[in-house]
């Protein structure tokens, strides 16, 4: 039911883990709903220098988490903020309709991490 690309990201997720002393942390979802994601980011000169994720969830949740970190890495914060859930799903070659909500985790998690960074670094 998943595309080959989704399965590839599920099998070999990119950027798994936690950044120690991260500049921003985003946590979205809820274990009671079966899905939760934590993204940690390292920012340098307004650029996402490093990004890592941990995800509890289905194949689509893992694959979209992995994909969003790939899409965001090296991007300017403003550009990263513009990544939509839709764009993540499209980059994966689409998701089954019942799984579209899982892609919400990914972009939401990234945005939460960037917002956290901005809140901490308000001049």
């Amino acid at each position, binding site marked *: 039911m998943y595309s080959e690309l989704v399965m590839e990201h599920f099998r070999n997720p990119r950027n*798994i883990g936690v950044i120690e002393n991260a500049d921003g942390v985003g946590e979205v979802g809820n274990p009671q709903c079966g899905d939760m*994601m934590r993204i940690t980011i390292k920012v340098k000169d307004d650029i996402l220098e490093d990004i890592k994720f*941990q*995800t*509890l969830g289905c*194949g689509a949740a893992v694959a979209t988490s992995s994909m969003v970190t790939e899409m965001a890495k090296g991007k300017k914060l403003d550009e990263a903020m513009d990544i939509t859930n839709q764009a993540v799903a499209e980059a994966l070659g689409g998701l089954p309709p019942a799984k579209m909500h899982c892609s919400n985790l990914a972009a939401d998690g990234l945005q939460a991490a960037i917002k956290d960074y901005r809140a901490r670094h308000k001049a």
Partner: protein
Amino acid sequence: MDRVVYMDHASTTPTDPEVVAVMLPWMSEQFGNPSTMYSLGLRGAKVVQNARESIAHTINADPEEIYFTSGGTEADNWAILGVADAHSKKGRHLITSTIEHHAVLESMEYLEKRGCEITRVPVDGGGLIDPEEVRRALRPDTVLVSIMYANNEIGTIEPIADIGRITREAGVLFHVDAVQAAGKLPLDVEELGVDMLSMSAHKFYGPKGVGLMYLRKRTRVTPLLHGGGQERGRRAGTTNVPGIVGMAKALELADNRMAEDAVREAALRDRLWEGLSAGIEAIHLNGDPVRRLPGNLNVRLDGIEGESMVLMLDMEGICVSSGSACTTGSLEPSHVLLAIGIPAEHAHGSLRATLGRSTTTEDVDHFIKVFPPIVDRLRQMSPIWCENCVCKQRN
């Protein structure tokens, strides 16, 4: 690596080659419609009658009490909707449990939306129903009690005979969904005291898309399917001759080897549980440790979600299923796991392995070997699993 370890027998079973063999002629040269007057068709009528007699004999019923259907779902729908309709003058109250199959629960909900009252009796932490709860739920306007014989997720075996005594005493009709029990537990409709019982062939090594309802004589039930006068006018539709022939053979085979299969599958299941619980931390058994179907194992693992386990096991050639909402497309985790008191976040991390005839010791050992690294890997990527965090200390 091309090896397939099939451990999802509660979902469906491979059709036994002996069953396939007896079905084949009825799909080729003997293709006639049993409702005709010439010998090509009448041979079909005869073989269906033989099947009816053989199945009736196995469950201690009369052949006229067997009605062939398209499977378990149809039989469950028919029993519930048919009784509610035929007995609406007596009352509009029905009793079921919280852990029934969706074929029962959704039929009950359908009636509820149309003005019936439904009581769903609770289960204990192992999934067992207390017959006294059924007795307490009975009312003068109760028209049906529908309780499953064995649960499809956690394998719990319900005290059907005890419930049957209560319903009989009260003069209330009793339907039993025996889809998971058929071929695995002795079925004697007299001993169980049931008025209606559903079965489905593909759960006991028969073909898919064929099942039956046992309907005690003189029980009033409105038909679900209207059309030609098949099944003595109570279930219309051209008779599925090959399916029925296959189901009868499958039930005969299952009945002959029931005790032997049960002992073997329970031993393999226990080996699997011992191996997994020895090699993995924070793994727990779901359901009743004793009163459960022999091949059924259902576990939950802290800190991981079920679908990702299913997908990773599939890469190792292992077929299992999970109680996570993520596998069903709904957002709710298994209603059965919630009903036995497992919190939602743990229900999502559940996995069901159901062993069967083809399961070998090697299959079990393969599972025991490949599963712990999968669990480790998923826990490493889990935001709620960490060596010292609170979620782990809770357990």
